[in-house]
């Protein structure tokens, strides 16, 4: 089997298992929201990044319809962000939350570099490995701000729940 299929299948399976295992039942809604939020942001950022040749995806799921990588953007990284967001300590010091953030972004960047090196799923153009680290950190940071905003005012959420 080609390396690319192996990785794609792996990403779907491990993403799904991770999403089920590491997101407790009571946080499922929050998990979905984080996933969708990250997805919306990564698509938006990837469009210009691919357009201007920062990176490319030679081997992809819908080669005719788009040049973007579907599995990574649509499911795998959003699922990882969701796991990150749900398991983040609410009451940590700045240092613990920074370390947590740093570790996650670094691990994902390492995974990304591995995909870039050993498969055709991603190829960096103008982007370097540290550029990718910054890119992923930015995606995580912006998504986290948006999710935090969503859960900021509990009272508002309550009224919306009653009205919907």
């Amino acid at each position, binding site marked *: 089997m080609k390396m690319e299929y192996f990785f794609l299948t792996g990403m779907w399976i491990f993403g799904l298992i991770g999403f089920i295992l590491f997101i407790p039942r*009571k946080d499922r809604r929050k998990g979905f929201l984080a996933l969708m939020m990250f997805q919306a942001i990564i698509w938006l950022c990837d469009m210009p990044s691919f*357009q201007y040749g920062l990176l490319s995806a030679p081997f992809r799921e*819908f080669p005719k319809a*788009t*040049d*973007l990588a579907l599995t990574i953007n649509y499911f795998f990284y959003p699922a990882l962000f969701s796991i990150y967001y749900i398991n983040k300590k609410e009451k940590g010091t700045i240092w613990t939350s920074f370390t947590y953030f740093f570790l996650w972004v670094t691990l994902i960047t390492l995974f990304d570099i591995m995909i870039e090196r050993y498969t055709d799923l991603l190829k960096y153009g103008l982007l370097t490995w540290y550029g990718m680290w910054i890119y992923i950190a930015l995606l995580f940071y912006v998504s986290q701000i948006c999710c935090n905003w*969503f859960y900021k005012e*509990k009272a508002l*959420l309550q009224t919306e729940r009653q009205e*919907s």
Partner: protein
Amino acid sequence: MRVEWWIILSVYALSTGILFFIPKNKIRLAVVAFLFKQIITFLIGLVVVELGLIEYPIRLFASINRTSFTYEYYAFPVTCALFTVWYPNNRGRFIQLGYYVGFTSILTIGEVIIEKYTDLITYIHWEWYISWITICCSFFITRLFCIWFFSKSADNLL
């Protein structure tokens, strides 16, 4: 500038205008509807283009993406957010049905006109009623998701 680009611009303007019709106390409901709609439109949009059912000759990010970014990322999700926040929950079944039919028909009519007179979208193996049915279904699925997301049993949501 070609007329198609003016249409794309006005679609952005119109969609942004729609945002002002979303009540402040329902912003989160609108956000959930918007985000969930994107999940549907992205995947279906890609599949439809990949199978060669629809083409978008003039589009944004043309060199890397053959689907309609404007419609799938912004215009349709925004419309869906509007649909969800103003949904007539407490009215009769007939009015609710009419609400679905109204929203779906307006979007479909708009699409058919654009298909006919511009190069923004071209049906290849596609008919207006397939658009109508899929749009209607996607509204329904999004609404189901929103109901689940904001349901009473979600006390642990906070």
